[in-house]
């Protein structure tokens, strides 16, 4: 069965660039927030640029929180969260107040402390793969990826598959069974970023769970 990849449209940013990254590696992906289409998906991608609270509010108002919980936690569909889409799977976010996240991973999303390093953390930074994951298949350890963020994912090591360092060491890639997420932008990280997109698209539920 070929992959049916859905990119969740919830009004938060660079959906088209994620879509064209899938196209570049030979897959098509549909941008939508229609429940009936999302239910048919094999792969669900949650990208996002913007603020945590706004994002959760948008997901809620589109009825997507319950739908995603069912599709990801019960039906174990393959999930990829990118940037804000990774942060949203935490329990709580502290951007402009305290907000509940999807709560799939034990984590809080906190702001980098100001000074001496500049916030946001923007640019190419290396990622240390501390645990093997099919997401990083055929990608050399310590490769560089493109980051843009002011908040980081504070989580126990259990589900962390990649760390980066910006003043502090922080988790920048996660895998928990069928749930994958990256703080960096694979769609903007050229060769190895596109490889991550391809690795994800080529996975099957059976190969992971």
């Amino acid at each position, binding site marked *: 069965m070929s992959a049916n990849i859905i990119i969740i449209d919830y009004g938060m940013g660079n959906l088209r660039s994620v879509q064209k990254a899938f196209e570049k590696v030979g897959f098509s992906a549909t941008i939508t927030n229609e429940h009936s289409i999302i239910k048919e998906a094999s792969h669900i991608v949650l990208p996002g640029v913007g603020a945590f609270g706004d994002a959760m509010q948008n997901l809620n108002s589109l009825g997507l929180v319950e739908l995603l919980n069912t599709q990801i936690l019960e039906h174990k569909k393959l999930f990829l969260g990118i940037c804000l889409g990774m942060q949203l799977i935490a329990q709580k976010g502290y951007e402009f107040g305290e907000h509940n996240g999807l709560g799939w991973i034990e984590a809080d999303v906190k702001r980098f402390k100001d000074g001496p390093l500049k916030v*946001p953390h923007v640019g190419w*930074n290396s990622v240390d793969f501390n645990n093997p994951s099919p997401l990083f298949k055929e990608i050399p350890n310590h490769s560089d990826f493109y980051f843009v963020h002011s908040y980081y994912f504070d989580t126990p090591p259990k589900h962390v598959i990649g760390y980066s360092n910006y003043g502090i060491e922080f988790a920048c890639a996660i895998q928990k069974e069928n749930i994958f997420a990256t703080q960096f932008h694979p*769609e*903007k990280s*050229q060769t190895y970023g596109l490889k991550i997109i391809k690795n994800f698209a080529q996975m099957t539920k059976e190969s992971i769970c």
Partner: protein
Amino acid sequence: MLKHRLIPCVLLKNWQLVKSIQFGSFRTIGHPTATVRIYNARNVDELIVLDIDASLNNEPINTEIITDMANECFMPLTIGGGIKTIEDVYTVLGAGADKVCINSEAIKNPAFIKEIATIFGSQCVVCSIDIKKVAGNYRVFNKKDGLLEIDPIELAKEYERQGAGEILLTSVDHEGTTLGYDIELLKLFKDTLHIPIIINGGMGKPQDGVEALQNGADALAAAYIFHFTQYTPQMIKEELKKSNYSVRIL
């Protein structure tokens, strides 16, 4: 570790990418999408494209060609030229750009920077300042209005206060000359800003990049060296690495 970036900075004119020499005598580099594909293959770290038809000739922003380039660009893409309103920013980002580069409009109205940063975030705004040296003093230069009685350092500080994410400094005198970056200018800027400085204008050999980083540049923009010399982005980065600067090498 965060890396120093090497960024092609090219101009869009009559549906072609071009390179200027001291802001005049344009030389064609190639077709936009083909050129972006090559940059992508060569793993440059970002790309800046300035639409001079839109900025100088008041033509509408060429969203068709921006979309075509963005479709080939799997690295961050900054687009500038003729961006005057928040609607323009929406248009350019909607076409696939990741950041906008603002020059003339910010000189007229620095609060425009704040407006963009509030809606899209500081990481989205690059402020471009063109600088010319006259009688020993550096002054802001504008392509339309010519030399202005504005101190570039004061202008850069104002942009930072307004929420700019990065400053692109272009030396008009060095631009397209391969004489090396304007190091004297960089020395004046050193330790004055808390946001990254991208230096532009004059890179003719890899060692010029080393010298710029030694003197306070955070990132290097260039064009001539990529198209009219024997040096590749990879060779430049290897030279930077030899001098112990962290760069992304594949």
